[in-house]
């Protein structure tokens, strides 16, 4: 409940990228005032710059909280997890640098020009902020983290289940190679698993008591369908809302134009088994 609020579900917008505008603006303004104090040395710029720093550090700490809530939802093996760790580490370093900066400044608020030490700290802080901000943006615009997350009502997969394919041996079904991927109990209603079947990546979902397996990647811009919304026998891509029929893989509505590959699933001795040799749906024209 708290996590849902911190992730901004009611707003349809994650809170972290919304709140970070405050510290970014305050630190930037503080730095601009430092520069202005050197161009036009005048009383008040340095003091103003100090207050911006203090407010920046406080708002940065506030913004960190929903940031952690978003972080906890990134799949463990997602490349963005590492980006998020860098983003977080750099931001803590940045807030630390600015906090020390502010502490040094508060000892004397009335120089006309920003002295070298606080100025140097601010330059370092701004550099860290720029890099970390860029990484944060890359997580959203490149990796689609937190995009469309609010439409999914259930938890997203915590990690990819890796299954090594058996070389040739056997199968539980006469007409294909059926591979057990997980205990059927593991998959709750409305949730999905992300499975790597010897390189083939699929999503296995349970909706209205039925199990479905289909390709993980949307056919539009390749968004993660294991994180999509499951409803009315369909899966909706979290990124641009392309919708596919779970049973046939057919596009229900775009932007995607190409159907998904789907795979037969059955339960065998309590295990979910996926027949990865057969695809149920042909590619549409």
């Amino acid at each position, binding site marked *: 409940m708290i996590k849902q609020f911190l992730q901004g579900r009611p707003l349809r917008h994650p809170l972290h990228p919304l709140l970070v505008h405050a510290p970014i603006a305050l630190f*930037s303004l503080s730095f601009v005032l430092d520069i202005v104090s050197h161009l036009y040395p005048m009383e008040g710029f340095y003091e103003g710059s100090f207050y911006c720093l203090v407010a920046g550090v406080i708002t940065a700490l506030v913004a960190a909280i929903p940031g952690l809530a978003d972080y906890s939802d990134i799949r463990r093996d997602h490349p963005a997890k590492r980006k998020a760790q860098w983003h977080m580490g750099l931001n803590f370093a940045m807030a630390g640098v600015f906090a020390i900066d502010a502490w040094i400044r508060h000892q004397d608020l009335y120089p006309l020009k920003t002295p070298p030490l606080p100025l140097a700290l601010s330059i370092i802080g701004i550099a860290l902020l720029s890099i970390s901000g860029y990484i944060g943006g890359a997580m959203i615009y490149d990796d689609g983290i937190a*995009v469309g997350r609010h439409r999914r009502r259930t938890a997203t997969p915590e990690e990819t289940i890796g299954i090594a394919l058996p070389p040739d041996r056997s199968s539980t079904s006469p007409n294909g190679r059926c591979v057990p991927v997980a205990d059927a109990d593991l998959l709750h209603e409305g949730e999905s698993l992300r499975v790597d079947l010897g390189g083939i990546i699929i999503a296995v979902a349970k909706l209205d008591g039925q199990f479905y397996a289909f390709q993980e990647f949307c056919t539009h811009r390749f968004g993660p369908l294991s994180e999509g919304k499951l409803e009315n026998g369909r899966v909706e891509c979290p990124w641009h809302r392309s919708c596919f029929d779970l049973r046939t893989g057919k596009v229900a509505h775009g932007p995607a134009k190409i159907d998904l590959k789907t795979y037969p699933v059955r339960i065998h001795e309590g295990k979910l088994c996926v027949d990865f040799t057969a695809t149920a749906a042909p590619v549409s024209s």
Partner: protein
Amino acid sequence: MVRLSFWAILLGLVAALIAIPTGLVDWLRIKKEKPAWRIGLYHMGLNALVVAIFVINAKIRVQSFRFDTEVDARALTLSIVGALLLVGSAYLGGLMVYDHGISVARHSKKKWRAVAESAGANLPEQK
């Protein structure tokens, strides 16, 4: 502090001017029939209004900001209205990204395509 807020407004206006062309370019790429197009239009309209409000705000302040100890009541009102409109407009901007996926995976399309391809997915024809 009156002086400080004047400089903050100027900085904001300069930064807004820089951001305008990038926003326009993003908006022009959205297809007109998509709901995000209309949100973008409101986002743009509100932002233009906010910029106008802060330009007037700065004009009111420019004569006396060096000596004032208290902010002019008209300027303060404009700042409050401007800030509220800005929050609303920024929220619309956020909706376009987080709810409609505008600009998401635009530059990383090739990377994800390669990942999907090696994962045995059906793919659209390469353009």
